[in-house]
C-alpha cells in the first residue's frame, strides 16, 4: 500500500456521497470514516444503515446527507436487511426487471449494532454468503444513546454503564475480536482500518466492495464526545491506536493474515491512553496490564501473518 500513498490523493474522487452538512460532533471520526468509505464505494451502491450515530446525524426528515440510495430500518437487523436487498437484486436482474450493472450492497453499523445486538443477523448473512460488504464503525461504545459500554469497549474504559468508581476500574472485559469472529465464518475478505490512514482505508473498502461474497471491514473511529478527548486530535489518536499496536491494521484474505503496516518499534500504550478522559483513572498497574495484553496480542497477530507468508 505504502508505495501508492504519494499518488493516491489524485486518484481519490472529489465527489462526496456522504455529503457535508450532517450533524456529527466536531472531530467525529465515524463521519470521516464514512465519508472516505463512500468515496471508495462509489455511486453504484445501496447503503443499509443501522440505528446509531451515523444514521441519526445523516438523516432527519426532511433532510439527508446521503447521495446514495440509503435505507435505515432498525438497530440490530442491518445485515438481514442487506441480505434482502442482495436477494432482490439477484432475482430481479435474473428475471430481467433490473439492469445487470453490478450494484453493490453495503451495510453500515456501529460497534453496538455489530458486535452486540446485531451479531446474529450478521453471522447469518455472512454464513449464507450474501454478496455484500459490512462496515463496522467502531467507536467503542453506544455513543448515540450516551456512551454506554459495548462488547467492543476496551478494558479499563469508563463509560456510563461501566463507570470508573471507588471500587470499579471501568470496563472489566477485554474488547471482543470482531474481525476474528468474521474470519471464522470463512468469508473471503476481512480487514481493519482507521480514517487516520485514509488511503489504506479507501484501498481496503475498494477491495472489499469488489469482492464477490461477504466482506467485512472493521474501522476504528475516534469519538471525541465519548472518549473525552480533544476534538482536534482525532486523527492523531487514530494514528496512536495503530502505532501502539492497540488497533493493528491488517487484512485477512481467504484466511491469510497480512499486516498492513508492521510497527517494528511500537509506542507505549500510555501515549494513547493519556490523551483520553475515559482512561484518566487508570493506575500504572492497570496500564502495565494493558501493555502486556497488547504486546501478547500483537505478537500473536505477527505470528499469524508470518505463518501465512512461510
Amino acid at each position, binding site marked *: 500500500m505504502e508505495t501508492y500513498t504519494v499518488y493516491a490523493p489524485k486518484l481519490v474522487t472529489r465527489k462526496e456521497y456522504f455529503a457535508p452538512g450532517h450533524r456529527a460532533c466536531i472531530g467525529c471520526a465515524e463521519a470521516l470514516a464514512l465519508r472516505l468509505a463512500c468515496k471508495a464505494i462509489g455511486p453504484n451502491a445501496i447503503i443499509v444503515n443501522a440505528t446509531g450515530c451515523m444514521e441519526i446525524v445523516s438523516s432527519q426528515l426532511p433532510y439527508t446527507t446521503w447521495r446514495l440510495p440509503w*435505507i435505515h430500518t432498525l438497530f440490530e437487523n442491518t445485515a438481514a436487511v442487506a441480505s*434482502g436487498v442482495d436477494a*432482490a437484486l439477484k432475482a430481479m436482474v435474473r428475471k430481467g426487471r433490473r439492469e445487470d450493472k453490478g450494484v453493490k450492497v453495503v451495510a453500515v453499523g456501529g460497534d453496538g449494532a455489530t458486535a452486540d445486538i446485531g451479531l446474529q443477523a450478521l453471522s447469518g448473512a455472512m454464513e449464507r454468503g450474501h454478496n455484500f460488504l459490512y462496515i463496522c464503525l467502531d467507536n467503542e461504545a453506544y455513543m448515540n444513546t450516551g456512551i454506554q459500554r459495548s462488547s467492543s469497549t476496551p478494558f479499563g474504559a469508563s463509560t456510563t454503564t461501566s463507570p470508573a468508581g471507588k471500587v470499579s476500574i471501568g470496563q472489566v472485559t477485554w474488547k471482543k475480536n470482531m474481525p476474528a469472529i468474521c474470519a471464522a465464518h470463512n468469508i473471503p475478505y476481512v480487514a481493519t482500518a482507521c480514517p487516520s490512514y485514509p488511503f489504506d482505508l479507501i484501498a481496503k473498502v475498494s477491495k472489499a466492495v469488489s469482492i464477490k461474497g461477504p466482506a467485512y471491514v472493521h474501522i476504528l473511529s475516534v469519538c471525541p464526545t465519548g472518549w473525552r478527548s480533544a476534538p482536534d486530535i482525532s486523527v492523531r489518536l487514530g494514528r496512536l491506536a495503530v502505532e501502539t499496536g492497540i488497533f493493528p491494521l491488517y487484512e485477512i484474505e481467504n484466511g491469510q493474515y497480512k499486516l498492513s503496516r508492521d510497527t517494528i518499534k511500537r509506542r507505549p500504550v500510555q501515549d494513547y491512553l493519556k490523551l483520553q478522559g475515559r482512561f484518566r483513572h487508570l493506575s500504572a498497574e492497570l496500564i502495565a496490564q494493558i501493555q502486556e495484553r497488547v504486546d501478547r496480542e500483537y505478537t500473536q497477530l505477527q505470528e499469524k501473518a508470518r505463518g501465512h507468508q512461510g
Partner: protein
Amino acid sequence: MATKTGVEVSIAIADAVKLANADVVAAYPITPQTHIVEHLAELVANGELDAEYIPVESEHSAMSACLGASATGARVFTATAGQGLELMHEVLYVAASMQLPIVMTVANRALSAPLSVWGDHSDVMAVRDTGWVQMFVENGQEAVDNTICAFRIAEDRRVLLPVMVHVDGFYLTHVIEPLTLPEQAEVDKFLPPNDYPLPLWPDKPVAMGDFAPPVIYSEAKKAQEVNLRKAKQPILECWEEFGKQFGRYYHPVESYKTEGAKVLLFTMGSFSETAMTAVDKMRGEGKEIGLVRLRLWRPFPFAELRQAVKNADVLIILDRALSYGGPGGPVASEVKAALYGEAKRPKVVSFIAGLGGRDITVSGFEQIVSRGIELAQKGSEEEYEMFGVRE
C-alpha cells in the same frame, strides 16, 4: 380450466405464491407454518419458481430481509406463526410505516408459556396495531384466493402496505381440502407485476427510513393511519375483480342465514365453518340463529359490521385469544366499541374458547348460543365467559 384437487392447504398456499411469481422468499421454520416454506423451498429448488429463497437465521431476520427486498422493488413473501410472529414484532411496524408491500401468511398459533404449537389467535391479537392490512380466511380455497389478492392489495399504488393473511394453524394448514388452483394465465391477468414507485436503485437515490423529530412524527403517523383506512376501497375493488374473474366473492363482513335472526353468532377464521354447521342444525330446529363472520380485521370494517348486526338483539362473539385483565375477547371489545354510538344495538356477549388448539364442536356452538342468550337476558357481572374450561 382449473380443476378441483385434494391438496394440503399449506402446499396450496405455497403454490399460490408461485402463481404470484414472488421474487424473494425469506422465512424461518415454525410449526404449524413450516409446510408452506418447505414447499416454497422445493419449488425454488426445482426451478418451478424463479425466486431467491433466503433461509434466514430467525424470524426477526426474515422480516428484516423482507424489508430490504421489498424496498428494492421485489415481490416478497414470508410466513410464520406464534412465537415467530412475536420475534418479528418490532420489524412489523417498520414494514407498515415504510409502506413496504410484503405479503405474509400467519398460521395462527398460541403463545408460550406453556409452550403450545396448536392454534388460537393470541398471535394475531398481539400484532393488531402494527399497521398491516389483516384478514382471516376460513378454508383452503379462501387461503389460496386471498394469498393472490394480498399481493394485488399490497402493491396497489393507492395502498402500498404489507398484508397478513391469517390462516388457522393445523385446522387449516394441515388439512387436505378439495380446492381449485387458478391457472397461471388467469393469475397473470389478475395480478400485474410489482411496480414499486421509489425503489432503492442508484440511478435515482432515495433515502428511506430517516428519523423524525417531534415536528414531523405526528404528521407521518396521521398519514399512515389515513392511508390504512383508505385501503378499504382498493381492497373491496380487488375482491370484486377477483369475484368477476374467478367466480368467488369475498367481503369484509360476511353473513350466513341472518335473515330474521335476532340472535347472531360472530366468528373469524376456520371456526366459522363449524359455526355454519351449528347454525344449519339450529335453523333446522326452528331457532332463528344466524352467523356473522369477520374477514377483514384491519382496516376494521365499521360500516359493514354495523349493517350486518343492526337487526339483532343478541350478538355472541367467540374470541380465540385472551386480553389478560382486560375487557374480554379482543374482537368482542372492538365490536362493542364499534357499536357503542349506535342508537339501536345488540347486546354483545363475549366468549373465549378454542385456546391452544382446543376444538369447538357443533354441539359446543349450540351450548355457546344457549348460554349466550341466557347471559344476554339475565345480564352478567363478568366481562366475558370462558367456554369449556375446567375450573
